[in-house]
């Protein structure tokens, strides 16, 4: 929505007189009007000579704003949306998928936490390879220079080799479905996500993005967080809501990684604190069992409809 002035042409009741009345109370845009107390405005309009006309204007504005909310949905429609649009994305390892009842869910923000070299990036690569082989697009935001095309190629070859007889072009095609962007500050990331949102809005359905990966989100946020820096906090939360919005509106699964810091008593806990904690829908903790094997463990820290505390082991090829 915009300035009150832009409504002047459409609604005759909102005339220069009314605009002047609003401007004298510091109301220039529809947003200003929304945060203003309507009954106070009515009361002050009463004192003026042309109060009836002003009141009509206020009522008109209230009516306009009421039509601008999102349409309501009932439970059945939500369930249908779930079943038709929010698919599961396989992680590529069976026990992991069983734990999550099918894999990562579109419309969910999933967070992987774990200490360094616990397999976070490897899981990201594996999910990305898996989606790419099924011709879904993956956008990979890399903040740690850890995106390794060689490793992706290994994984793609491994997955396609075990399932069907692969053709040589298959690997290239799959790898063309993964695109990587190096980001080194949160402003660039916000910019890119806004751009992505815009493109998705205007894009036809033929080239759909199924998965967004941010590896790692904590290294972008950690430098701006803490101290007396309230702005860093605001940036972090707005990034979180942008991700949630993207995933819900466009049926995308979002996968982010977070590192761990030592909490009370030396035990490890996910970084970024309490206000980040309620952003991801699903939080999974990874650990590596032995430094020499490629067997990793995953543990549900938080899930919207599954009991937390379950864990399984899985293997990364």
């Amino acid at each position, binding site marked *: 929505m915009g*300035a009150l002035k832009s409504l002047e042409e459409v609604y005759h009741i909102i005339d220069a007189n009314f605009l002047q009345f609003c401007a004298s109370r510091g109301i220039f845009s529809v947003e200003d009007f929304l945060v203003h107390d309507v009954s106070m405005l009515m009361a002050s309009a009463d004192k003026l000579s042309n109060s009836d006309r002003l009141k009509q204007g206020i009522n008109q504005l209230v009516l306009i704003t009421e039509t601008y909310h999102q349409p309501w949905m009932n439970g059945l429609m939500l369930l249908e949306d779930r079943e038709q649009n929010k698919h599961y994305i396989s992680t590529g390892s069976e026990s992991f998928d069983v734990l999550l009842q099918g894999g990562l869910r579109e419309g969910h923000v999933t967070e992987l936490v774990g200490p360094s070299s616990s397999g976070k990036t490897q899981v990201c690569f594996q999910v990305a390879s898996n989606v790419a082989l099924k011709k879904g697009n993956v956008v990979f935001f890399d903040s740690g220079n850890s995106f390794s*095309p060689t490793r992706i190629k290994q994984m793609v070859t491994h997955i396609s080799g075990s399932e069907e007889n692969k053709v040589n072009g298959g690997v290239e095609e799959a790898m063309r479905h993964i695109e*990587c962007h190096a980001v080194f500050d949160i402003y660039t990331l916000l910019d890119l996500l806004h751009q992505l949102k815009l493109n998705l809005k205007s894009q036809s359905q033929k080239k759909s993005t199924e998965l967004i990966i941010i590896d790692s989100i904590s290294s972008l946020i950690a430098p701006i967080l803490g101290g007396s820096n309230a702005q860093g906090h605001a940036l972090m939360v707005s990034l979180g809501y942008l991700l949630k919005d993207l995933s819900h509106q466009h049926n995308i699964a979002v996968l982010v990684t977070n590192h761990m810091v030592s909490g009370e008593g030396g035990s490890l806990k996910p970084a970024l604190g309490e206000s980040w904690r309620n952003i991801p829908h699903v939080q999974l903790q990874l650990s590596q069992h032995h430094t020499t094997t490629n067997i990793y463990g995953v543990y549900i820290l938080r899930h919207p409809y599954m009991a937390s505390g379950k864990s399984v082991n899985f293997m990364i090829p």
Partner: protein
Amino acid sequence: MEVLKSPLSASQKGKLISAGYTSINLLSSVSPSHLALELKISEAEALEILKTVSDGSRSESTSTSCTIVKGAQSAWDMLQEEETLVRITTSSSDFDNILGGGISCKEVTEIGGVPGIGKTQLGIQLAVNVQIPFDYGGLGGKAIYIDTEGSFMVERALQIAEACGDDMAEYSRLYRKGFHSHEVKIQPKDFLENIFYFRVCSYTEQIALINYLDKFITDHKDVKVVIIDSITFHFRQDFDDMALRTRLLGGMALKLMKLARKFGVAVVVLNQVTTKYSDGSFHLALALGDSWSHASTNRIILHWNGNERYAYIDKSPSLRSASAPYSVTGKGIRDSPSNNKRIKNI
């Protein structure tokens, strides 16, 4: 690209310019509703403008493939690029093997270990090896050496450079007899000339220098390796506010990664060790804490195993964890002698 040259209608251009949008880059982060408000046009029209503009600028920058996000690269293209990259050798073939051929450019590699294990030696060796010319399978680049501890010994660098020059002379004698026989040998002094040395005396200086590196490398495009010996020193003292330290280190790590990616240089960060208490006992770990452990792309730990020095890959997105012996000789880093003996015996 300027708005005037964009494929928009004249009235739209006029509106954009009068609202202050002279360049298309300014439009990349504007939301359609915001633009509609500013230009006093409908949201649909604003969306149309943004779409036209982003299409135009995209076809200008990347003509080969249309990516979803501007400036992104597909994994396949990156793979092609990576396969052409030359790595910096460590002068020890076993060490190179576990690294997949040497220290990778475009990445941050952290190397840590106990005092006396040879971190600085490895740093000097890399600063020399990066200068090996293309003809000899090297990069023909220059090195930046950032010394925070004052442990860089120029005499030692000269020794290593001499040994490297000798090796190259031998290589050309063995493999291309008579071919470039009258070729001018690189003098050890030339090696020293191509190492840019910075001495850092406090952590603020260190941050300032890393901020300046961007400009320095833009001016010296042939720099191929940045060695920081060590990142830890100034951050282990004079810090009361540990949260501030974590923030500063996090920011510095991002800047180093950006350098590595933007200029294709290898960033090698040396780190000290500390003792860490876990599971009821103390054991050695690299310094600067858990948050820092995420900062580097690759992590290599140097350690003693009996009387031999070993390098161990602790963390890497693309390499398997593995370890290899190496030794520090008068000539610099070389293969472990016991290992050679074993091969000879077989």
